[in-house]
């Protein structure tokens, strides 16, 4: 098993090449439908990174938007990547995120008079625990009776979505005389932003309040470090990887496979739940209808795969996806190209990462199967999970 470092250094060519490939194909699609690819991409670049802006967009503002977008992607990306290492496919990061945001909101509203040193840890821990619980259901069902985590996490996503809607549309969390939103969490439950939310303070030409980068960024970066440390420097990490390689071998090596599965899901859920809590505490300050249409947990699957399951990879992939998200809007406003193009580009990047077109086209293709586990962590996980107990239930 290659180390994260080697992943980060040696493995960069494929992702970068894939991104280039995706943009080339995307450009053809734009041109074929009568658009101008160059102005489209200029809009993306401007929106994502504040570079090459045609209409004088503010660079600092665009960067801050990108950062706000990628913070939850990092957290949920980890929540998908960690179970991947154990051969588990966590499609449920979204549901876990929602559980975390619900818990954060409930605590932040109920105890809204508490001061920040007490309330802030409460909402963050509460969010993480709720996410862990949500993922834990899938983990326990998997470890004890073998219920497939893909089914259970999909079901749990739906249950969480309907729970959110129930709570805020006419339900117990609904803002009195409001609709489709909860009451706001107390001031003590809010993560501070790096710049004061003061409209009279002008920074980089704009009121300071427009830069919404919050301290959740530090939590996300810490989460990445925890993820890498856990996976490569602890015995639990070793067990997770061993289970992912082969459950049977892991069992012979004396590893408690069911326990490892449950613990992996609990930790993953905690990351996702924390992402949801951070989103409420750092950005939104209340639970709203937007969480019903939220897709962060699904984008996270792409992020984890694009990041090759490594900490550095997840960081870079999150930045890319966050920048694409922020860039899409500017592209549509400036160039009139539908921001749906962003999804097309994301898909093309994934295709080309997965297929490793470049290696094939570059003639360095050897006639052997690309080792799935080292190439992309999603591979073979269905099978690894499958090989569990010989002769059970299968015909």
């Amino acid at each position, binding site marked *: 098993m290659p180390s994260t470092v080697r992943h980060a250094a040696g493995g960069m060519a494929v992702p970068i090449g894939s991104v280039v490939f995706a943009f080339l194909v995307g450009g053809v699609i734009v041109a074929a439908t009568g658009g101008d690819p160059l102005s489209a991409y200029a809009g993306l670049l401007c929106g994502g990174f504040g570079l090459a802006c045609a*209409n004088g*967009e503010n660079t600092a503002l665009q960067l801050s938007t990108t950062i706000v977008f990628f913070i939850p992607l990092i957290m949920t990306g980890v929540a998908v990547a960690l179970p991947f290492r154990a051969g588990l496919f966590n499609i449920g990061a979204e549901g876990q995120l929602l559980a975390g945001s619900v818990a954060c909101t409930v605590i932040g509203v109920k105890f809204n008079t508490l001061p920040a040193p007490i309330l802030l840890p409460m909402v963050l821990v509460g969010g993480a625990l709720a996410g862990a619980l949500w993922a834990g259901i899938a983990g326990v069902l998997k470890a004890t009776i073998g219920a497939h985590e893909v089914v259970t996490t999909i079901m749990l996503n739906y249950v969480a979505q309907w729970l959110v*809607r129930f709570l805020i549309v006419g339900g117990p969390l609904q803002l009195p005389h409001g609709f489709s939103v909860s009451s706001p969490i107390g001031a003590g439950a809010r993560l501070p932003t790096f710049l004061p939310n003061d409209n009279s303070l002008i920074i980089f030409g*704009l009121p300071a309040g427009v830069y919404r980068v919050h301290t959740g960024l530090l939590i996300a970066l810490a989460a990445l470090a925890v993820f890498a440390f856990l996976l490569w420097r602890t015995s639990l990490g070793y067990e997770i990887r061993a289970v992912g390689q082969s459950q049977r071998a892991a069992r012979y090596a004396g590893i408690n496979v069911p326990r490892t599965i449950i613990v992996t899901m609990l930790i993953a859920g905690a990351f996702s739940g924390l992402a949801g809590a951070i989103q409420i505490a750092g*950005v939104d*300050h209340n639970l709203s209808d937007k969480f019903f249409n939220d897709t962060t947990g699904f984008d996270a699957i792409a992020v984890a795969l694009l990041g090759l399951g490594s900490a550095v990879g997840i960081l870079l992939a999150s930045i890319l996806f966050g920048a694409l998200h*922020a860039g899409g809007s500017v592209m549509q*406003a400036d160039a009139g190209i539908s921001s749906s193009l962003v999804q097309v580009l994301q898909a093309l990047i994934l295709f080309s990462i997965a297929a490793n077109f470049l290696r094939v086209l570059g003639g360095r293709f050897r006639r052997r199967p690309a080792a799935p586990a080292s190439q992309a962590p999603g591979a073979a996980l269905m099978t690894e999970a499958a090989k569990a107990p010989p002769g059970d239930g299968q015909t």
Partner: protein
Amino acid sequence: MGHSRLKFLGMVGLALMLLAACGSSPAPASKTYKIGLVTDTGGLNDKSFNHLADVGLEKAKTDFKVQGDVVESHSGDDYVPNLTHFATLNYDLVIGVGFLMATAVGTVSGQFPNIHFAIIDGAGTDANGVDLKHPNVQSLYFSEQDAGAMVGVIAGMLEKEGKSKKTQHVISAVGGISIPPVNHYIAGYKWAATMEDPSIKVLVGYSNDFTDPAKCKNVANNQISAKSDILFQVAGGCGLGVLQAAGQAGVYSIGVDADQKDSDPSVIASALKKVDVATYTAIKNVVNGQFTAGALTFNIANDGAGYALDNITLPADIQTELDNVKAKIKAGTLTPPSDIPA
């Protein structure tokens, strides 16, 4: 293209405009007004109010010297950045479509006090849902209950006179989500239908969806099974399934927001919420320097809400009653409720 050439073109254009301005009054503004439109997550092809807002913008583009740019929001996370984007570029008017953007408009309008904002179906609020009453925000509200009442009169009269397809004295409405703009329609509908035909039963169901026609169709089929003769859809793109279900079952249906005459032959009328008129009006006011903060309500009296008769020829007495009720609502002697009556 070089700067000098741009400058030259600009000067020629300016000269032409000055020439054109001579003699004509009022003088056309030489300035191009920049209007930014931010859709909610329904997107431009929602066959509902985002679409209508864009129609209003397009009309303004042909009538005034207006540059209109549109950004679709893919998630609620996009509202603040999208509104901010237009604000930082000094747009003359930034329009947010839909009440979901209320807090976003509240936040951004506070940061950019010199930029004019308008919001459809809502106000610029704080996190507690309290209208911040920023002097640069105009709220464009609609009396959906007025439009709902008009189609309710039609449904009630048809039932009372035995002129619906089956006349079982049951009518119904399919809402998208149970939120005020939806329930206002249903409130007016139920109120008016009951007023015309006190024996009528009004079923109300929700699809919890604004996009998936299959879901609304099933809700509609259930209402048809429960003997509904006339179905009112209040669910945007999802509600197209209601119109279709009515057509297949041989009962009447009523469209919403825009005139949905062409969606299905079963559509006898549409309750209109003229978001296009509202958007156009907001832009016109900015162009004419008549922007006003606060609420602007579009109702049946100012023709911002109303109804369209579609694939049916109404008996004369029903038309008379319609005109009668319309006049009374306009005069304020009848007021449709905004909450669904029990």
